[in-house]
């Protein structure tokens, strides 16, 4: 309800106040366009005892969306809590429900980490979508009181050679790099996966790790009546308003020609410089103990921050919305409340600290404004969910119980049904597929596999990310996990890996989720770190499809049961639904991130061969004839069917324990997890990483195809200094872990010789492995 005067200036006109809403109960409201169902709208009316104002409708609709309320996933996610034992909880300082989980890693350090999706914006506008995905997760970590210290990005795209992938991938990679590099955060890992189901629906997941002293943990609370609410960081604009624009166009007069006001895209625009300054400013505010509670502004902007801060504290808050610094004229209260302008934070501050708070902000040139205060609530109001009152030039535009906005949204028990084609899919195994036979075909298969888009070098992507900044990066891509030093004196550090094979999940989401967990767990252990906690980003199709909900339910159960078996807790997570193009859903993609702890990063285990003069190659674990869902089945036959590799989490745990013990006692000089592409892939990558040749001798009677390409889980390739070989194999025998000698590293050689199969020059392998992505993306 603004109008444009003759000079083109927009002037404020009457807004939809609470009084006006009470007086006009029958006024039609565009709640359906805002994504609310009829019964959801009726529930809002029942809560308020009247129709909502425009501003309230904007708040409820965005906070009750799938993205913010988890309304379809909540009933399933409870299972994570139900399967977390007291013992698993022991090392957690905060868990699900906070912005991010916090893990006690020892020496007085706490580490927080979380992964979030920014899938849909990244399809619409790849650069900004990916950039603001990084920005959002970094602010989440900051809101825990931690200094963000590293990022990693699991990415998934359509076929590597599809024209649209050429639009989306370079933009996403440039966005991740452009934002993360400018923040000064090393990018230490992630994934790049291609599959046709991600065409039209790329997955851009962003992970951030933060560290802090245990005593500095900040949780979002707004307690303390009289405390001030301060909004600081960037100004609030019209970007990222999305669905709420229907309210604006309904109530906006004078733009019939479309010229009255610039419509901005629904994807937010990032400003990494502002975020970098905001990070340093926040850390100084934390250091000076000027913050009682803090919340970042991400999805749902001020609607989310005010309602969550208020309901996390004593329940009462008053906000003067007209004090919010704006960067567009004529914004309505509904727009201000739903704007997703980036690089903003909201803090609760004791009145006596406000001046000092504003001084720190001024030092960093950060705009900061007191926009409200924590208020007292009566017992009756507390029982209703607190009281959030928002005014606009003195008139009340929101008066609601904040808990009903933030935490008491609708919860759905969506229909769940195993897809009808699941049995058919499982029956279609790889048994009948033609396998390469003879040295010539095997040689060709090795080269074809290592140069295929899913197995080729990721350097084209990761070379656009700064992995060195802050000087604590110990391992980064192409290592199995990223590892950073947290304490420069003791050398204590953490490792992180993210994994998910959506093809396995499609064949069996329960087992697939456990395989994702097992792989991330194994990758962390391969570097020498002890797995300690799990985060996840559950990317699925439409929850309104019972088949998708079955995949989701199965994946959650598989992951939760797996975590209980491994004894490591899920400390946080994120759900992204509606990842589909038309009626075709993406492969179920529960990305699992595992955080590991290492007491001294100097004993990390690298991937590359050749750090010791003579090394023996051992294959730990058992190799079975398992090709269903494998990368070979895709590359050679474009096939997906059957059942995924068997998962044995007890074995994974044993494997990890042996490798960590080997690392601690200096018995290992290299380790590489075996997963997609099997042993051949691991040998090639380790030889190239160390720029050292080797001779692979498979056991007597072994089928070379199965040994080279099978994707059996629970396996690792390790290089053991010759002097330690006996000690290490004795340990494996004593603990019941199969260890098969599969060759030797040859520091004098520039070739990988697979005895009886083929010999490859390192240059030939490097050309094949490194050439693919540059050829596709320039």
């Amino acid at each position, binding site marked *: 309800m603004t109008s444009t005067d003759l000079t083109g200036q927009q002037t404020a006109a009457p807004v939809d106040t609470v009084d006006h809403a009470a007086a006009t109960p029958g006024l039609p409201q565009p709640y359906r366009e805002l994504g609310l169902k009829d019964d959801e709208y009726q529930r809002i009316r029942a809560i308020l005892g009247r129709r909502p104002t425009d501003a309230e409708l904007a708040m409820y609709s965005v906070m009750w969306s799938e993205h913010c309320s988890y309304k379809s996933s909540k009933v399933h996610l409870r299972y994570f809590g139900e399967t977390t034992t007291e013992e698993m909880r022991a090392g957690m300082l905060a868990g699900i429900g906070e912005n991010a989980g916090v893990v006690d890693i020892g020496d007085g350090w706490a580490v927080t980490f979380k992964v979030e999706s920014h899938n849909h914006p990244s399809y619409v506008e790849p650069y900004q979508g990916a950039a603001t995905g990084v920005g959002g997760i970094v602010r989440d970590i900051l809101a825990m009181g931690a200094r963000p210290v590293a990022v990693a990005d699991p990415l998934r795209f359509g076929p590597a050679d599809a024209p649209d992938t050429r639009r989306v991938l370079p933009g996403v990679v440039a966005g991740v790099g452009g934002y993360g590099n400018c923040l000064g955060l090393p990018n230490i890992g992630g994934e790049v996966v291609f599959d046709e189901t991600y065409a039209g629906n790329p997955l851009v997941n962003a992970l951030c790790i933060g560290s802090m002293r245990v005593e500095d943990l900040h949780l979002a609370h707004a307690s303390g009546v009289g405390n001030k609410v301060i909004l600081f960081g960037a100004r609030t604009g019209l970007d990222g308003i999305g669905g709420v624009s229907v309210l604006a166009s309904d109530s906006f007069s004078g733009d019939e020609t479309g010229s009255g006001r610039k419509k901005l895209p629904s994807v937010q625009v990032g*400003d990494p*410089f502002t975020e970098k300054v905001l990070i340093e400013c926040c850390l100084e505010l934390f250091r000076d103990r000027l913050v009682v509670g803090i919340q970042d502004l991400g999805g749902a902007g001020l609607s989310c921050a005010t309602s969550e801060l208020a309901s996390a504290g004593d329940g009462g808050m008053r906000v003067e919305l007209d004090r919010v610094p704006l960067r567009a004229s004529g914004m309505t209260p509904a727009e201000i409340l739903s704007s997703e302008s980036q690089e903003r934070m909201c803090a609760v501050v004791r009145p006596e600290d406000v001046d000092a708070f504003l001084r720190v902000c001024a030092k960093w040139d950060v705009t900061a404004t007191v926009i409200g205060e924590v208020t007292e609530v009566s017992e009756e109001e507390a029982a209703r969910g607190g009281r959030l009152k928002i005014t606009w030039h003195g008139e009340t535009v929101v008066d609601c119980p904040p808990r009903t906005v933030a935490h008491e949204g609708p919860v759905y028990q969506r229909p769940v049904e195993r897809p009808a084609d699941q049995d058919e899919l499982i029956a279609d195994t790889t048994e009948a597929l033609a396998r390469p036979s003879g040295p010539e075909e095997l040689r060709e298969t090795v080269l074809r596999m290592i140069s295929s888009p899913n197995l080729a070098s990721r350097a084209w992507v990761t070379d*656009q990310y*700064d992995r060195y*900044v802050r*000087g604590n990066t*110990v391992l980064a891509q192409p290592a199995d996990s990223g590892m950073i030093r947290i304490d420069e004196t003791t050398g204590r550090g953490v490792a992180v890996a993210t994994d998910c094979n959506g093809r396995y999940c499609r064949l069996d989401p329960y087992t697939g989720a456990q395989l994702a967990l097992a792989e991330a767990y194994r990758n962390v252990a391969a570097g020498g770190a002890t797995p300690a906690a799990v985060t996840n980003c559950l990317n699925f199709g439409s929850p309104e499809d019972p088949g998708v909900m079955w995949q989701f339910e199965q994946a959650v159960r598989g992951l939760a049961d797996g975590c209980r078996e491994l004894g490591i807790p899920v400390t946080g997570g994120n759900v992204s639904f509606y990842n589909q193009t038309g009626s075709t859903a993406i492969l179920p993609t529960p990305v699992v991130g595992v955080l590991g702890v290492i007491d001294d990063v100097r004993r990390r285990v690298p991937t590359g061969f050749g750090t010791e003069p003579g090394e023996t190659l051992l294959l730990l674990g058992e190799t079975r004839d398992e090709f269903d869902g494998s990368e070979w089945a895709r590359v050679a036959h474009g096939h997906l069917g059957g059942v995924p590799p068997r998962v044995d989490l007890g074995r994974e745990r044993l494997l990890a324990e042996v490798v960590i013990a080997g690392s601690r006692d200096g018995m290992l000089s290299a380790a590489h997890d075996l997963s997609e592409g099997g042993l051949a892939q691991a040998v090639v990558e380790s030889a190239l990483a160390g720029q050292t040749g080797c001779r692979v001798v498979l056991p007597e009677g072994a089928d070379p195809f199965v040994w080279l390409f099978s994707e059996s889980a629970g396996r690792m390739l390790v290089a053991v200094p010759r002097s330690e070989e006996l000690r290490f194999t004795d340990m494996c025998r004593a603990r019941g872990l199969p260890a098969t000698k599969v060759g030797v590293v040859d520091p004098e050689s520039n070739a990988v010789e697979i005895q009886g199969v083929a010999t490859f020059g390192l240059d030939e392998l490097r050309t094949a492995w490194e050439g693919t992505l540059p050829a596709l993306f320039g």
Partner: protein
Amino acid sequence: MRVGVITFPGTLDDVDAARAVTTAGAEAVPLWHGDADLRGVDAVIVPGGFSYGDYLRCGAIARFAPVMGEVVTAARGGMPVLGICNGFQILCEAGLLPGALVRNSGLHFVCRDQWLRVENTTSAWTTRYDRGAEILVPLKSGEGRYVADEATLDRLEGEGRVAFRYVGENRNGALRDIAGITDERGRVLGLMPHPEHAIDALTGPSDDGLGMFLSLLDTVVTA
């Protein structure tokens, strides 16, 4: 011995530069962009990052920061100054070094371990190296392509002011493979690669970068 490390809003590698100074055995002194005060330091490092966001030409705003006026005066008086990456860009903008850094020829940001050949071993920052030695340090920049007119390039070469050259691949397309240059007196050094990220093989590709900070110690102590 005290070495100042400047922080602008948007500076990223100041912690790394300070760590390198400390590892070399000197005291790192934080300098703030808004203070026209060098706090009595013996040398200054202008570290990498994106000063003020670098949304305009890189370093174009930073050169006007109050602290930079002091740096320019001190450098003209002979104080050793090292500009790394964004710092190199800033020193060029401030007129302490000739030429400019423009967008990489491949248009992408490039982060890689880069071999450099040491061409000058007499400047304040390079005495610890052997002439012709090859060192491995990270290069990470989007606008790292060194350019200058032919006459300037000839003069730099003739006066032995090309300090480091890219060996093997030259991924940003710098003219004559130039990675770093000095001023006339060899007191001011600017380079795109990051010696402060190569002080320990645990966290960098080598410890080859430490030589620059140790060279400075020799320079200041013998002065």
